[in-house]
């Protein structure tokens, strides 16, 4: 299930609903992995004097139709690769403040390793494929966040060796 929304989400309530859905489907889930991304206090880019730059807010722009499509594709791909019984991706857009929720990824499986790997996979792909752009707002004005090479490397792990990682699952 995917949702792209301006509103905040309640992790506890989402988790509870997902577990109930999975149990109603007769899935034998044992482990649920949740990733919550929140707005940081400090910019990932250095400030004008090289130190961390305190943020006052962040604006997330996205490409509505494509976002839905990309998230649905990524989720379907994860469920083909791992024995996932239930999953949820929520990504917010609009104006957010430090500490606010940005993204939620939940994966549930009978096998904890599958839940962990599918979750990491989804988060890596969200960072590199989902059409969202962060603009940070701090004392020096507004700055578009630059994409990180490390995020590309993380996402590439799954291209190179999905099968090897998967075979380590219990």
């Amino acid at each position, binding site marked *: 299930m995917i949702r792209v929304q301006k509103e905040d989400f309640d992790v506890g309530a989402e988790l509870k609903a997902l577990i109930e859905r999975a149990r109603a489907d007769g899935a034998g889930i044992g482990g649920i992995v949740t990733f919550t*991304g929140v707005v940081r206090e400090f910019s990932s880019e250095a400030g004008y004097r090289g130190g961390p730059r305190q943020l006052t807010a962040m604006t*997330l*722009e*996205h*490409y509505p*139709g*494509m976002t839905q*499509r*990309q998230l649905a594709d990524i989720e379907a791909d994860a469920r083909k690769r791992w024995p996932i019984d239930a999953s949820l991706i929520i*990504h917010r857009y609009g104006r957010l403040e430090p500490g606010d929720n*940005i*993204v939620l990824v939940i994966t549930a499986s009978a096998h904890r390793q599958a839940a962990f790997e599918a979750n990491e996979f989804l*988060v890596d792909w*969200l*960072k*590199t*494929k*989902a*059409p*969202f*752009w*962060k*603009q940070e707002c701090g004392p020096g004005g507004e700055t*578009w*966040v*630059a*994409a990180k090479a490390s*995020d590309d490397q993380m996402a590439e792990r799954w291209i190179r060796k999905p099968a090897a990682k998967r075979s380590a699952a219990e």
Partner: protein
Amino acid sequence: MKLVYFAWLRERVGKAGETLTPPNDVTTVGALLDWLKAQGGGYAEALKDLSAVRVAVNQEYAGPEVQIGPNDEVALFPPVTGG
């Protein structure tokens, strides 16, 4: 052809989107980018460094070789930073 722009590409072009009719020989993503850049102004500014430009055709990522036509929606944007 419908064009849409996001993030700093939108800011540099100076609009969120527009409908354009490129010349008949502009049939690929790569040719479209070259033609747009040649329009100068905000386009030239936005497309100065093509390594920082990503393209989606009808909401799917597309490389420079992908074919495009009058009914397509072509989006130009910087590398994504969500998640």
